[in-house]
Structures are given as C-alpha cells and as structure tokens.
C-alpha cells in the first residue's frame, strides 16, 4: 500500500511539472505549428501521463489522455493541421486533465469530480477525424455514428503507442522526425492549400472566431528538455529544517561578532586578538556563504509562475476580442519557494486587469495611431535583497483625475483629501476594496476585488507596490518583494529606551528632520518629503513606550512602505542594519498587534520585529499631536515650592546638612543614597527636578559616572549638577568638569555658601 502511495505521489509531482511545460509549449506551437520538436515533446507528455495513469488504473484520466494523444499524434505526423479551433479543443482537454489530476491529488481517485468526458472526447474525436488524410475515412464514419468511441477500436488502428515502452516511443519519434524532414518541405506547400480546415460540424466550441485576431506569440523560450540536469527531490520540510538551523547559526555568528568587538576594546593590542579576529572572520564568512547556499536550494525560477501567462493572455485576448502580445523577460530570476507560491494570484489579477482595462480594443488602438496589437511585458529582475516584478502595458493608462472623482463619488475620500493627493497616491486608489474603474462588470474583471487581493498578498510578503502611468501611453506596476522570508535584513531603531527591528524590505529611506518641518493637516501630522506628503507617527506612541527623553530639535524619520501606501515613522535613534531571524514568541504571545515576532540580537537580548501591515493599521487610529507633545515645555514655575532639588549622598548626615542649608530657600527636597538610585528617580519622570547636589564617592555609581550618565539625555543637558565633595585636588575638579558638573563645592562648606550656589543655579534670588 505504501509503495503504491509513493508511486502515486511521484506520479503527481511529475504530472504537474509536465503540465506546466505543456501549457507554454502549446501556445507556442500555435504560432509555429511546424515545430516538430515541440510537437514531440507535447506528445511525450500526453503519452507519459496516459501510461502512468493506466498503470495506476485511473480510467477516466487514461481515457482522456488517450484521445488527446490521438489528436497530437496526427498533428505530429502532419495528418492534422493545428488550427486555432483545434487548439481550443486541445487546450480545453488539458484543462480537464489538470482538473482530474487535482482531483487525484485531493481525493486519491479520478472519479470524485464525476466529470463528463463524453463531450470533450467527442470533440477530440471530431478534431482528430476532422481533416484526416484519405486513408482514415472509415474512421470518420465511426466517429459520426457514435461520438464516444470504443477504446479498443481506437487502439487497434495505427500504431499502438500505449503499449510501447519509452525507448520505443523515442525510436518512433526519431524515425518520424527524419522522415518528416525530407517530406516536410514538399508536403507543406501542397498541404496548406489542400488540407481542409476542421469541419464546422465537427462540434468545435461555440466561441466566436474573431476575424482580425492576431496570433499571440511568445519569444522562443529556451528549450531545456534535451539537457538533463542532475537533481534529487528533497522534501520541503527538510529544507525548512535546514533553514531554521542556519538561522540559529546566523544568530550565533552575530553574537560572536559582538563579543569580538567587546574583547577587542578591552584587550587592545594583545597578540591573541589577531588570531581571534581571523577565526571570527572565517566563521562569519562561511556562515554567510552557507546561508546563501541553503537559500539557493529553496529558490525556484519565477518561470514557474510566468509559464501560465502566455496561455492566459491568449485565452483572454480571444475572449475580449483584442490583440494582445505578451513578452516575458527574466523568467530565470529565482526566488524563495514560499514566495513563488504566494505571488501567482496577484500577478494573475494584474495581468487580467492589464488585458481588460489597460489594452484598448483594436479599433480604438488604430484610431489612436498605436500598433493594433497591444503589448504586455512581464519582467523580473533582482535589485539588492529584493526581486522586482514589473508588469507594463501600452494601453490607455490611468487617469489620476478620473480616479479622484470616482473615489469621491463612492465616498472613499473627501474632496480636500483628493486635492491633497499626488498622482501616485491617486493611482493607489485602485487597490481599495470595491473600487473599480470598469464601466461594467465583465467576466474578466470589474468587481473591484482583484486589486484588493493583490494588495493583501503583497502585504503578506512585506512587499511594496508602485504604480506609474501616463494617460494614453500605458501603465507600469512594479512590485518589490523580499527574496526570502526566514532570514531578513532589518533596520534596528530605538524608540526611547526600547529597540525594534523593521524589515529592511519595507524601508524606503531614512531622513533627519527638524521639528519645524512637521506640519499639521486636519489633526494629523505630516511631513513634506520632496513632492510627497507623508503622514507621521511616532513609534513610541504606537507601542506605548514610556517617554523618558526629551527629544532634541531634530528627529529621525524612517519612511516605510507597504504595498501601495507609505508612512513616516518617527524614531529616536537609528542603530543600524542587522541580519535577523524571525522567531515566534510562542502560542502565548501569538498575534500581538504590530509585532511579527522576535529575534535574538548579538548581545543575547531579544528585539521585537515590527509587523509593518498591522503597524500601519494601528497608525491610522492614532491621534497624537507630535509637535505639541514634543515641544511641551515645563510648566512655568514661580514660587520656590515649585522647584525641586535632588540630594544624592550615601551618608545620611551629609544629606541632612544639605537639607538644612537649603531650607531658607523654601525649595522642595528629595533624597537618593547612591548614583544608581538617583538616575532611576530622574528617569522615572515622577519628579521634576531642577537642581541636583551630588556627592562624588558613593557605592554602586559614583558622582562622576552619574553626571556623565545624566548628560547623555538631551533633556537634562542644562540641569544644574552641583558636586559636593571632600575631594579637593585640581585633578578632581577637572574630572568634575569633564563629567558635566556645573559647580564644585568642597567640604566643609558654610550653609550660606551652599544656599547661594543653589539659588544662583535655580535663579531663585533672595528677596
């Protein structure tokens, strides 16, 4: 039983791969019907699937492929000309074959879908019989009498390909090939004039045959069928596991690099450092190579997705009565398997849209003086750590003004919003759900769903979409997608005292702005960046980070983009770019808003990775006036009681003396027994401290360290720090100045002196 299951799985994998190639080959065949090489490879596919399915006793599938094989065999032997009508039938039968294969994959049999094959088989028969060369006339009679033909009868006529081994088939193909080559030229001329087109009665599909229809063509794809590469099939789960292990290794490497930096600082000039450096560099190099190598094993050429488009565009152009040519570039560009799977749907929607709304019909194109055949280009190429997919059409383009009007009509935006919108933002409107520019809903599109799907899928991949369009010239849709999802490059930013990792693929740029550049429009903070208007939010507001630092005059803005939208994220520090491995935070913290996961940094600490999609969602609901909150100055202080002094000394007695000295001022006083405690009090924001009296010699954190720590916060740049100490030497005083002390009082001191110094520094002069 297991054996059979294994064979079945192999069969399915093989069959799906074959079919993918088949679609492309068939469309190509239509433009070059004489390409024997192509015909042969198509024939081989039908034959292989037939052989395997009969072995696995999938009778329905066998029957279908058998009839396909018949038609193809005739075409191969030049007994049948592949007209568009014939191709329609063949393509349709391939669709049914696919449906059957899906059914087999899902249900393990081909009867579950209970597909009615009589019709298609009848048509295949008709086509196959349709323009037979004379010797097969008797067969035609059979067809006409009973469309569903007895299998044995068919197998009996001509060579029985089903009973041939693969080798024999190859041999047969070879034989026919050489035969053909000689005859081809002579025959062709005669044939094309004499061979009748498929008879109308031959039950060809009722699709309208557009008179001016141009044959869609694809550039000759590289034929790899003959070059056999050596491969092994590996389960994806094994590769996933390998990737996870590499992820751990990358984190280990990051950590090693960080430790090396620390060691280098501490043991500068030591001899062993050189050796350590070599080892660390070697390991980091190998790890990076290993990571790339494993990533490559997961990579698939994007051809896997692109392959279905020639067929799709061909069908669409026939259905819509337009002439559309599809050109594909860069189908060998590779990207991660998981991404290849996600990207198919969005592409289908975009290409459908380009066919339906983009490219005009033939008459319109001609009257505009354009080439009557529209051109759609599908391009893929690498750019840094991302892959870019471009869909270009030379159709009528998007009219930004029309889009604005339509959006206002539907109540999606207000008129002011529309006025403030740049053209690019207006183009982005097409991604709104239920927004459609189509005058009427057609079979192909117009329901306003497709582009929404595009947006959602690209968001899932952390990709960015850009639209560029010119009325009358065409539209370019550009999608930028990260190469892989497991290990990502991230920008580490600081919001107050917390750090977050932003996927680099979503970051378009970082800018440093001054507060004056922030404008307020309808209660929202915006930034004018070149010709764009960005709405601004603070990362710390989104994540509710405690405000500790007073921001300076300048601040950093990280411009992040997702799918079609952009936003400016205000952060307090930019740390740098780092390689991060997304780790789940477990069931307990699954699905936290705004957080995609966590990663372990070089120092062993955990840093949260921002989920751009939900972050943008959260940003929308946020209303904080950044400018106001950033500029909020201390309340005006008038009375001495409004002022607070912090006394930092480890000796209770010293603190009491200071207290007594300052009592005449009437100022509030609080105490801390060491530097650490004082710093915590200061940072907690609980007290609004105006002056600090600091002893130098204290446990846990001395006065010098405390002063230099305090000076790190721009908010406390001007806070008066008064050193009160028994250290009197010049070097001590100097150190005091270096660490940022404002005044230096040596013990013993007179109470009046201290009082005066404090008064001077708080500007509380005695009346």
């Amino acid at each position: 039983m297991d054996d059979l299951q294994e064979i079945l799985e192999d069969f399915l994998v093989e069959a799906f791969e074959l079919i993918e190639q088949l679609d492309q080959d068939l469309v190509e065949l239509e433009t070059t019907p004489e390409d024997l090489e192509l015909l042969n490879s198509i024939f081989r596919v039908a034959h292989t699937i037939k052989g395997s399915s009969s072995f696995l006793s999938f009778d329905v599938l066998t029957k279908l492929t058998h009839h396909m094989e018949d038609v193809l065999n005739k075409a191969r032997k030049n007994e049948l000309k592949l007209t568009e009508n014939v191709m329609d039938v063949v393509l349709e039968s391939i669709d049914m074959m696919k449906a059957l294969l899906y059914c087999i994959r899902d249900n393990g049999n081909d009867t579950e879908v209970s597909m009615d094959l009589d019709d298609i088989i009848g048509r295949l028969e008709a086509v196959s019989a349709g323009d037979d060369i004379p010797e097969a006339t008797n067969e035609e009679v059979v067809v006409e009498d009973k469309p569903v033909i007895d299998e044995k009868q068919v197998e009996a006529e001509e060579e029985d390909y089903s009973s041939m081994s693969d080798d024999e088939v190859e041999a047969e193909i070879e034989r026919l090939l050489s035969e053909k080559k000689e005859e081809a030229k002579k025959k062709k001329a005669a044939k094309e004039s004499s061979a009748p087109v498929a008879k109308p009665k031959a039950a060809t599909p009722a699709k309208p045959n557009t008179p001016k229809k141009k044959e869609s063509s694809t550039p000759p794809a590289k034929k790899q069928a003959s070059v056999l590469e050596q491969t092994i099939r590996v389960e994806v789960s094994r590769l996933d596991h390998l990737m996870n292990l590499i992820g751990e290794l990358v984190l280990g490497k990051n950590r090693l690099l960080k430790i090396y930096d620390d060691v280098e600082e501490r043991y500068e000039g030591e001899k062993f450092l050189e050796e350590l450096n070599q080892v660390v560099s070697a390991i980091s190099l190998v790890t990076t190579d290993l990571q790339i190598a494993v990533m490559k094993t997961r990579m698939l050429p994007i051809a896997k997705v692109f392959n279905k488009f020639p067929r799709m565009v061909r069908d669409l152009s026939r259905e819509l009565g337009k002439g559309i040519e599809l050109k594909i570039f860069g189908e060998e560009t590779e990207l991660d398997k998981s991404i290849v799977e996600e990207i198919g749907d969005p592409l289908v929607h975009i290409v459908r849209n380009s066919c339906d709304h983009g490219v005009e019909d033939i008459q319109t194109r001609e009257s505009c003086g354009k080439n009557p055949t529209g051109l759609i280009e599908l391009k893929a190429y690498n750019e840094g750590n991302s892959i870019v997919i471009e869909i270009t059409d030379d159709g009528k383009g998007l009219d930004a003004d029309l889009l604005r009007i339509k959006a206002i009509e539907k109540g999606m935006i207000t008129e002011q919003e529309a006025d403030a919108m740049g053209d690019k933002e207006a183009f982005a409107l097409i991604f709104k759900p239920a927004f459609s520019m189509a005058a009427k809903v057609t079979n192909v599109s117009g329901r306003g769903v497709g582009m929404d799907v595009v947006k959602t899928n690209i968001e899932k991949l952390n990709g960015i979409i850009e639209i560029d369009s010119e009325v009358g010239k065409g539209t370019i849709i550009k999608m930028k997608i990260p190469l892989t999802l497991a290990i990502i490059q991230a920008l580490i930013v600081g919001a107050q005292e917390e750090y977050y990792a932003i996927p680099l693929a979503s970051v378009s740029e970082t800018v440093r702005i001054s507060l004056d550049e922030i404008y307020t429009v309808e209660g929202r903070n915006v930034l004018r960046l070149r010709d764009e208007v960005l709405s601004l939010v603070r990362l710390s507001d989104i994540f509710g980070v405690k405000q500790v630092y007073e921001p300076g005059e300048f601040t950093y803005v990280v411009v992040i983009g997702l799918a079609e939208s952009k936003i400016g994220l205000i952060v307090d520090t930019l740390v740098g770019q780092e390689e991060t491995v997304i780790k789940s935070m477990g069931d307990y913290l699954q699905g936290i808003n705004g957080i995609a996961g966590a990663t372990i940094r070089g120092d062993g600490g955990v840093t949260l990775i921002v989920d751009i999609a939900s972050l943008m969602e959260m940003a929308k609901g946020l209303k904080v006036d950044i400018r106001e909150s950033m500029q909020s100055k201390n309340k005006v202080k008038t009375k001495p009681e409004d002022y607070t002094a912090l006394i930092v000394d480890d000796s209770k007695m010293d603190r009491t003396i200071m207290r007594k000295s300052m009592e005449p001022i009437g100022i509030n006083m609080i105490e801390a027994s060491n530097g650490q405690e004082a710093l915590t009090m200061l940072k907690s924001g609980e007290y609004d401290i105006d002056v600090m009296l600091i002893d130098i010699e204290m446990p846990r954190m001395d006065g010098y360290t405390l002063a230099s720590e305090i000076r790190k916060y721009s908010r406390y740049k001007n806070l008066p720090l008064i050193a009160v100490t028994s250290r009197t030497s010049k070097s001590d005083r100097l150190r005091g100045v270096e660490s940022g002390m404002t005044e230096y009082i040596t013990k013993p001191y007179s109470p009046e002196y201290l009082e005066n110094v404090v008064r001077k520094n708080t500007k509380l002069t005695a009346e």
Partner: protein
Amino acid sequence: MSDKLNQILQKQANQLHKPENSDEDIVQLVGFIIGDEEYAIPILNIVEIIKPIDFTRVPSVPDYVLGVFNIRGSVVPLIDLRRKFNLTPINNTGDTRYIVMKGEHNTTGFVIDRLTEAIRIKSSRIDPAPDSSGGDKGMVYGIGKREDSMLTILKVESLLRRDF
C-alpha cells in the same frame, strides 16, 4: 569478587525498582512564595529555574505580561505572578527567580518572590480545589495539607493558557 559485584548490581536493581513500588502515590512538587503564600507546581513541568535576566517589553499586552526573554535561543514570554494574582508589584530582590515551565504547547517564564523547597507529598493528602477558587479562573489544582501548613498547588496548563 564476582559475589561482591553481584551484590552491588542487586542493590542497584533494587534501588531502581523501589521508587516505582513504594512511591506510587507520591507527588513531587516545587514550592515557591508569592506575596505571603506558598504555592507549588509539579516538578515535571519545570524546565529550569534561573536568576532574573533582562527581558524585552512587549506592547499591547496586559501588565502582568512583562515581556519576552531569551532562554537558550528561544524567545519565551515572562509573566509576573504577583501582578497576575493582583498583588502589588515589588522590585526584584536577591531571592527573585524566574521559573520556566512547559506545557503541551508552549513554554513560559514566571516571576516568583522566592523558592522554598522540593516537596514530596502523598496524593491522598491533596484535596481538590475549593469551589470558591473559581475566582482565580480555575488556576488551582488542589490544596496540599502538610503538618504545619497548607500549600496551594497550581494548575500549570491554566497558568500557560493565554487569557487576554
């Protein structure tokens, strides 16, 4: 010589078998203090007990979820049991520990005030949780009676369950 060896082997074999026979209904627990009360959890649910280390705050979660921390390369949530039990939070002391517990699906760290001891208690000495403890959302597995004190045995699965 071989006699001696046999004796030792015999002894070892006995030791191996004994616990299974005699300790059948003994439950092994680890006791710890939160606030004024002693709690306990089954020893088999404990991955490890560590001294407090740095953790990273996670936004938009209840206040008893302090954040996440790194334990041997995995990212694990940290929950303050004091806050979870509605007690006033205190700063870490020298006795504060993180107990890392694992359930069927996930692993989570819990902050406790201090450890007491490993406890062996006969399962017959454990009473089911009183009805009134439903207020704790069924976090109590049972009450262990000891010579001089009572012990609240917590249900690990419900501690590990996300309830927000």
